[in-house]
């Protein structure tokens, strides 16, 4: 069964969603991850979209982004962004997804300023809702490319707080809950150590070596004792993804 790297990543993202969970769905791959989870192991998951949509059924046609009209059709609720943010801020969102351009060992994300605000080398689009999801969901999942320039010891700017400077930091700054649970990259899957809050590699994608992952990480990466291989997408999962992204706009190679 052949599959693409984005298909593998979307499949890994989908598996992070348990049935019945309330999911704050982001743009791009997470959008597909939610649809895949809904159509496989998590049919009762509820999706919240920051632009003001709650839906618990699949859209009737493939969508490229959350504002596409099929995603509004027979939604459970169309309302204000503030309403969605209220549900999030109350703690009623179990899991959310965020993309990142730069991440560090404590899961802090930068999607704003490479080089920092006083010495901007690259301006990225910014937070959108990412800072809110990272601050307020019960847990959040990060999806990004695994490259050394992106996996840095300390991000240049914290757009979306992870565990900050490590254990106890979130409570100290006043964040009410949450934190990153998983980082799904182009090379593997990483999770956070419950004590140190540092990220560690827990699975490598098929055909990727631990050395490759280490070489593409800007600090000495911790490796889990029980390192596994990321499960490949099943035939059913690939079928579904083909239906959700027929042009492979998001899931092509």
């Amino acid at each position, binding site marked *: 069964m052949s599959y693409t790297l984005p298909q593998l990543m979307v499949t890994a993202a989908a598996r992070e969603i348990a049935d019945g969970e309330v999911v704050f769905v982001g743009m791009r791959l997470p959008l597909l991850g939610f649809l895949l989870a809904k159509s496989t192991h998590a049919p009762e998951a509820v999706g919240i979209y920051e632009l003001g949509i709650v839906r618990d059924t699949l859209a009737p046609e493939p969508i490229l*982004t959350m504002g*596409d*009209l099929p995603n509004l059709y027979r939604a459970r609720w169309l309302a*204000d*962004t503030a309403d969605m943010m209220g549900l999030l801020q109350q703690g009623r969102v179990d899991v959310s997804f965020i993309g990142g351009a730069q991440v560090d060992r404590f899961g802090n994300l930068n999607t*704003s300023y490479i080089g920092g605000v006083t010495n*901007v080398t690259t301006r990225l689009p910014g*937070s959108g809702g990412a800072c*809110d999801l990272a601050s307020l969901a019960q847990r959040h999942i990060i999806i990004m490319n695994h490259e050394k320039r992106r996996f840095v010891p300390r991000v240049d700017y914290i757009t979306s707080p992870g565990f900050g400077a490590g254990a106890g*930091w979130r409570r100290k700054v006043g964040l009410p809950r949450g934190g990153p649970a998983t980082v799904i990259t182009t090379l593997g899957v990483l999770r956070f150590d419950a004590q140190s809050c540092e990220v560690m590699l827990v699975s490598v994608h098929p055909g990727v070596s631990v050395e490759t992952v280490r070489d593409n990480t800007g600090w000495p990466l911790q490796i889990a004792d029980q390192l596994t291989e990321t499960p490949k997408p099943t035939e059913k999962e690939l079928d579904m993804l083909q239906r959700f992204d027929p042009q492979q706009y998001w899931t092509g190679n």
Partner: protein
Amino acid sequence: MPEAKLLPLSEAIDRFVPNGSSIAMGLAQETLIPFAAGHQLIRQNKQDLTLIGPISDILFDQIIGAGCVHKIRAAWVGNVITGSGYNFRRAVEAGTLEMEDHSNLTLAMALRAGAMGVPFMPARTALGSDLFKTNANLKTMNCPFSDDTLTAVAALKPDASIVHLQRADVFGNAHAWGNLGLIRDACLASRHIIITAEEIVEPDVISRDPNRVITPGFRVSAVAHAPWGGHPSPVPGYYNRDHQGFIDYQAESKTQETFLEWQRQWVDSVHSWQDYTKLLGAKRMADLAIKHHDLSEPVDYGY
């Protein structure tokens, strides 16, 4: 009879958006983005604007590229399906654009504070983040009851909100449907409200469903008729998102030169909504049209 507020789009922008204005746009994020009105700002070569919005898709990038913008107060500026907004990048990297970074939640609370008539709103987001570095309108504070650390977000009161909606009457009463983003609070927070609408309808079409009214008509300054005024963003009930328009824009805005070519073609040479739809062409419009209709069940407001 209340005053009729129907104006040509050019006159509405001319009268209610002087140079230096702060304007909220793109408030529903991906849908109902007022592209026609934004292009009119470019056409009138407005200067020193402050643009306010959560995620405006490519509209802010276009107005920045045309040299109209002094400052951005937003959560995200780019192209939703291709990533970066190149004019925005160039301007920030060159240091010519002042930036106030928000998250969607802090921007929503800033406008809600404006709408509620209070000087700030508390939030639990962004604590420990670097948003505070470029945003003096965020401060940490302690809750007067629980002593929890909170983010205080200062009220934002735009000079104008410009919103593209489905239908309006000539008096400023209007219906919107679909995801509503920050539209409601932004309108209430603003000094002026300028509505562009797909259709101008008889007043009773609006007044027979007052719950669907987006903001009280007495607060609206101008209404302009602008069919396809949200293109390439989607407008529920009227047309789908024109993905190709966003994909094309990535290449069209890659350099300052290509952007100026885009501006010449899509803005400067367009003088009416009729021009714009001619440029789009019948086939593209037919492709984007609603094909699977799904009508709401009426409700009774009788007595």
